[in-house]
């Protein structure tokens, strides 16, 4: 447990010092603050537009931060040979991966919370009051991020950062399109329709984490639906991190 905490702390320090993080974060905060301008152009629908764009901004920028920082997390250690140094100590590969996961999760959570704070201030300033519903949306956003951190870590054991980034973006799009794919499969009577089912169930279904479109209108999913979504994220992350560990074991060190 101590080893995991130490690696998580180091990963957190390492990622929080990354200049890319600050550049993206500055841009994100600027974007969220500028939603006021979009709102003012909307003929009296300011609050709705600010909420929609604000929550979209928090999501997009937290994903960008995760991908940029995550895809090079293990790859960098292998390239710089620092992985030897870490593994020469009484630290297992599992501990290394779990430590990296929690370290990055902490960094992304902190930056996401910072963006959320700016969002809440902007909404409150424009007369929207305290947007409690958005907090539930941001929480699910973080659980989606946790899956994405696992994907990034897995890809960083397999591919270069560039390839990892490309594959992560593909997973992101596919993950949000699985419901549409399933609808097509349900309508299709050919064999290709049946091939969609394994893809639908095996790939990460990310659309379930998206309650942004609901909370803006004051709607909400049921509690079991919410809890099942969280459970899905936890189990999916465990599976991906286990595969990352197997992948790292196959790495010639």
């Amino acid at each position, binding site marked *: 447990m101590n080893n995991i905490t130490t690696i998580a702390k180091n990963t957190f320090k390492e990622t929080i010092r990354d200049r890319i993080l600050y550049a993206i974060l500055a841009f994100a905060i600027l974007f969220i603050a500028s939603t006021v301008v*979009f709102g003012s*152009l*909307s*003929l*009296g*629908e300011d609050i*709705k*537009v600010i909420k*929609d*764009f604000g*929550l*979209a901004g928090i*999501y*997009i920028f937290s994903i960008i931060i995760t991908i940029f920082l995550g895809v090079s997390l293990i790859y960098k250690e292998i390239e710089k040979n620092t992985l030897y140094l870490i593994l020469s100590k009484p630290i297992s590969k599992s501990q290394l991966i779990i430590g990296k996961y929690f370290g990055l999760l902490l960094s992304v959570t902190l930056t996401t919370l910072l963006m959320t704070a700016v969002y809440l201030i902007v909404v409150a300033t424009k007369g929207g009051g305290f947007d409690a519903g958005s907090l539930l949306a941001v929480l699910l956003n973080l659980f989606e991020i946790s899956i994405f951190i696992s994907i990034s870590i897995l890809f960083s054991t397999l591919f270069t950062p560039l390839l990892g980034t490309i594959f992560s973006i593909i997973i*992101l*799009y596919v993950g*949000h*399109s699985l419901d*549409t794919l399933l609808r097509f499969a349900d309508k299709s009577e050919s064999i290709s329709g049946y091939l969609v089912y394994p893809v639908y169930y095996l790939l990460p279904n*990310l*659309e379930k984490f*998206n309650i*942004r*479109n609901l909370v*803006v*209108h004051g*709607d909400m999913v049921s509690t079991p639906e919410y809890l099942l979504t969280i459970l899905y994220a936890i189990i999916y992350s465990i599976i991906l991190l286990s595969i990352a560990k197997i992948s790292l074991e196959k790495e010639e060190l």
Partner: protein
Amino acid sequence: MKILKYFLTAVLLALTVTIQFLYDEEKAKRPKPSPYVLSAEVVRAADLGLHNAASDMIWLSAIQYFGDWQTDKFQKIDDYLFLASDLDPKFSYPYAFGVLILPSVNMADQAIELGEIGIENVQDDWRIPYYMATTYHIHKEDQANALKYFDLAANTEGAPENIKVVASIYGSNADMRAKSKTVWQGVFENSEDEVVIERAYNYVFHYEILELLEDAAQKYKEKIGGYPSELELLVSKNILKEIPKDPLGFEFIITETGRATIK
């Protein structure tokens, strides 16, 4: 040497600004192409589930499109509004705006179709049925449907008190013009949107001009013995100082029976 470098940089920057300005001037002369509005399926496939934000973007584009003069005579405005409401079915304002604005660009049927979808998806916005009623009343001359939607608007939670009054007097007023004026007076007094307020004001002013012209024509008859064959006669015979300019852009005539109407 250093000063020369700074000077050259400043000159180059000034040149870039000038070229951009000249380019924009030239571009403005080019006729604007009619925009291509994507289908809801395509936008949904590409927006990472951020349908509301995509809907807002479409809504902002619709406002920009409608707020500027277009060579295509606003033929894409309905596509924009249907797309915005398809992506975010609970976003009420595009429905209300569409029902109010589309008839003015000869799209009364599209306005009614959009309004019906809106009433199904958003139950708490009185503006959608209210504007549906005005569309039925003014553009379709369908008083039965107008009454139905006035009633729906009046019974929507949060509807202002004077909307309820308008809805209740609508069926008992015999004069169509008076009814229309009442309707737009209601819009004028209850809307918070500048575009809608301006539109309602223009309609009320339009009906007041018609009333003024009819009064003047009556005075003309009493003075001369018949209704004027041209509006200018009302000015030349010192009954009116000038013929008021219609804010909706119409020209008027006086009929043989003394009624003022659109030319």
